[in-house]
């Protein structure tokens, strides 16, 4: 008999614009000890379906249908009884571990509250139980962590605490709603391994809600695919991945960028003959340090070294991928090149001209060659301006000689070029979807026909299928117009699709720069290897057979980076020399690597 049996679940929300039917007649079962994945893009109803089971819908939502848990209908239970089930027999972890922990309570107090709410035990017994659970989720020094406040822990640690708290009462069902989406890929790998291990050991049935098919591939036994509130397909994980029946599942699988192979095979762009100018963009020894003021009056500000000596070159028509975890300085790199933050030291040359030495007017003129696309598609468009004005603004600034009609002509042309209808001129950004907004942002960057576009995580806020469209668009545009791109992303699989060369960053420095195929096939730096190893692959068999080499711990704070090699604290090959000497970038077998022992590392399997 199944543990949870959901029949014809319907979730509706009453909104001022009419009723929204968020989940349409969904039925599924969950067996004891099973791991079930619910996959879908944003707005597919995947979270709402499960929230409704726990009575956690927003005030304007109603749920219909039946959800039998242990012979009782969860949807018909009174609130008091539901509360007894919630937390004790069914518990939940959320996406953002910071907002789900109360910042004013110590870890021990939050966790003990859960125990003592449901069971009549002494403080001491409850504390012992919490300690045991923290040990089970492999938190180092659990005794001290019990008395810490949430802000003293890193994101990965907090998520571990959340998992520990949710498993305290040994629930029968654990619901994880996007548990790793806010985390870096190396930390995500640790957390996924932990969930897999714990659910096997404790026999807890797990429902994993995620947008990421690759996460599901490694973790789940059965998968539900949702789209537009409907359950499109459900089945064994291998069935879904290898023999998908529904068109939507197929489309979704085809859209997922994969690390193990490029999604679309494209001819390498033809490199234009080298010009006399040399590289289009040249960055040397770039440092950006931010002063951090402590609360104390007259205290000397400390320095946050966001970028500490980074160099790169970009040839005409080339795409350079930049990858790294959050806090590695990749966005600061983009902002420094665009002169949005002042460089502390180093040189940035565009077409042979040093940006730092240019006068204001000359710099302004040069900016038309250097455009930018940001991560958040809506935030990068002024909400009070029409689309036409947004895309026209660069022309007003740099081509004041153009009359109204000429501007309009160009704007319409560029909007069509990025896949919009060209009739949106009078509409406002909030009337468009995320993907359309990103297209408008690309149109704004293109309208001046620049030579370089810096893309700062342009697709990470978008759903997988939209992501694929935008990546395709960028690749088309690049080939057609001979653009040079710097493509910054945390997602190695996306970077693989469109870069010719890739730079890997860690704590404000470049640790490896190599050709794309070189880097993904034979990563030379231990960090690159670990990073590639941490990315899940959307293929159940491959994913489960992989020999994993997971990184432990979290990246250190850039306020206080380790001496010598910055990666040494998490590196399994670290030796005394790594502590004393800063490794320089040097040529090793076709790539440039900053590691003392790059040649001596064992070959990649």
């Amino acid at each position, binding site marked *: 008999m199944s543990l949870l049996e959901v029949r014809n679940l319907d979730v509706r929300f009453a909104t001022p614009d009419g009723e929204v039917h968020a989940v349409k007649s969904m039925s599924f079962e969950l067996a004891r000890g099973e791991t079930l994945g619910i996959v879908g893009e944003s707005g597919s109803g995947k979270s709402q379906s499960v929230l409704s089971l726990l009575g956690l819908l927003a005030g304007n939502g109603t749920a219909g249908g039946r959800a039998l848990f242990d012979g009782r209908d969860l949807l018909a239970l009174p609130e008091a009884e539901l509360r007894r089930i919630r937390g004790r027999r069914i518990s939940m972890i959320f996406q953002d571990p910071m907002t789900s922990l109360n910042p004013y309570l110590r870890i021990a107090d939050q966790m003990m509250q859960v125990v003592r709410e449901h069971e009549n035990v002494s403080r001491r017994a409850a504390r012992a139980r919490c300690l045991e659970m923290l040990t089970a989720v492999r938190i180092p020094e659990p005794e001290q962590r019990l008395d810490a406040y949430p802000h003293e822990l890193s994101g990965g640690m907090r998520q571990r605490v959340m998992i520990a708290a949710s498993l305290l009462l040994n629930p029968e069902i654990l619901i994880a709603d996007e548990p790793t989406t806010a985390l870096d890929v190396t930390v995500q790998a640790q957390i996924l391994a932990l969930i897999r291990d714990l659910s096997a050991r404790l026999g807890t049935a797990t429902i994993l809600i995620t947008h990421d098919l690759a996460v599901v591939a490694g973790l789940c036994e059965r998968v539900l695919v949702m789209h537009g509130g409907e359950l499109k397909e459900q089945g064994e994980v291998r069935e879904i991945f290898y023999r998908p029946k529904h068109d939507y599942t197929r489309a979704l699988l085809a859209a997922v960028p994969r690390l193990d192979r490029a999604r679309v095979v494209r001819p390498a762009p033809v490199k234009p003959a080298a010009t006399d100018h040399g590289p289009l963009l040249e960055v040397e020894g770039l440092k950006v340090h931010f002063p951090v003021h402590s609360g104390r009056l007259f205290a000397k500000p400390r320095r946050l070294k966001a970028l500490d000596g980074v160099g790169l070159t970009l040839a005409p028509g080339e795409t350079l991928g930049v990858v790294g975890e959050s806090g590695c300085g990749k966005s600061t790199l983009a902002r420094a090149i665009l002169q949005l933050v002042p460089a502390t030291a180093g040189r940035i040359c565009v077409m042979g001209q040093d940006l730092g030495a240019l006068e204001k007017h000359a710099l302004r003129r040069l900016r038309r060659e250097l455009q930018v696309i940001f991560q958040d598609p809506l935030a990068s468009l002024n909400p009070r301006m029409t689309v036409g004005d947004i895309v026209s603004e660069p022309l007003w600034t740099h081509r004041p000689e153009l009359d109204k009609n000429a501007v309009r002509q160009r704007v319409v042309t560029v909007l069509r070029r990025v896949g919009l209808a060209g009739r949106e001129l009078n509409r406002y950004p*909030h009337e468009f979807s995320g993907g359309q907004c990103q297209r408008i942002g690309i149109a704004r960057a293109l309208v001046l026909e620049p030579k370089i576009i810096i893309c700062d995580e342009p697709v990470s806020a978008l759903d997988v299928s939209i992501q694929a469209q935008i990546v395709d668009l960028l690749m088309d545009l690049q080939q057609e117009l001979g653009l040079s791109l710097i493509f910054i992303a945390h997602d190695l699989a996306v970077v693989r699709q469109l870069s010719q060369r890739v730079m890997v960053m860690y704590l404000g420095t470049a640790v490896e720069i190599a050709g794309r195929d070189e880097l993904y096939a034979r990563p030379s730096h231990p960090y690159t290897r670990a990073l590639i190893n941490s990315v899940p692959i959307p293929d159940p068999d491959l994913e489960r057979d992989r020999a994993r080499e997971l990184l432990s711990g979290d990246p250190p704070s850039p306020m206080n980076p380790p001496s010598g090699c910055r990666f040494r604290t998490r590196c399994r090959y670290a030796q005394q020399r790594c502590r004393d000497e800063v490794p320089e970038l040097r040529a090793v077998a076709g790539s440039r690597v900053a590691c003392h022992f790059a040649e001596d590392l064992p070959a990649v399997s």
Partner: protein
Amino acid sequence: MSAETAQLQTQDVPGRSLWVDAWRMLRSNRAAVISAIVIGGMSVLVIVGPWFSPYSYDFTDWSNLSIGPSAQTGHIFGTDTLGRDLFVRTLYGGRISLMVGVVATIVSLTIGISYGATAGYLGGRLDHIMMRIVDILYALPFMFLVILLMVFFGRNILLIFVAIGAINWLDMARIVRGQTLSLKHKEFVEAAVAQGVGTFAILRRHIVPNLLGVVVVYVTLTIPQVILVESFLSFLGLGVQEPMTSWGALVKDGAEELESAPWLLIFPAAFLATALFCFNFLGDGLRDALDPKDR
């Protein structure tokens, strides 16, 4: 999505700006709509009403000293102890009170927006100095300032505008500066900087239009606050000069005659309270309609 694409097929799709959205939301808020109508009606009444009354605000009707409201005598709100028609005086008081509210708010708005936006956008040392000046001005005791002004320059309605405006722009400057700071790091502003758009154009096209929502809300909440401050000053005897009057002054006079002639308190107080209520409801409605967090 399909509806959206279908819409795109037609030529020149009209846009739906955030202002249109806000207007629609405001109109669906019944309390705010009624408040706006009441405020509008009251404004018309205080401007037009006195023209149709046979009495002027300082005319003494010797045959009707301190009588209650009655239609026969033509004093529909009654008269005060000096035989002056309360209806006309209430309307004249409304003129002064509403004018103080609007003028002082405009003064504080103008100073506050330019000061706050400059400090916020330019930032750095200048911002530090400008905001410390605001802090120092905050520390001045308001009552003390007003009494000093009255002593030096005599009682003058203009001085009340100046005094109230001079205090209120401080709040405005702080709010505008905070908004500017957060807008400055928005990606669309960074994109404009990266395009090479000039500082003034950025302030005009990107910063100020995005401040307006907050400013409009603040204005509707400032007007009643200013009216209240003026009433408070008048109640203390520091406000308008007799025989001119304001709602605050009328309430003060009425309170003294509370036992013998309660209508002297009831009518002006009712007008004052209604106006304050309506402005606050309208402000709340505007805040709901314009708050960017809802989007």
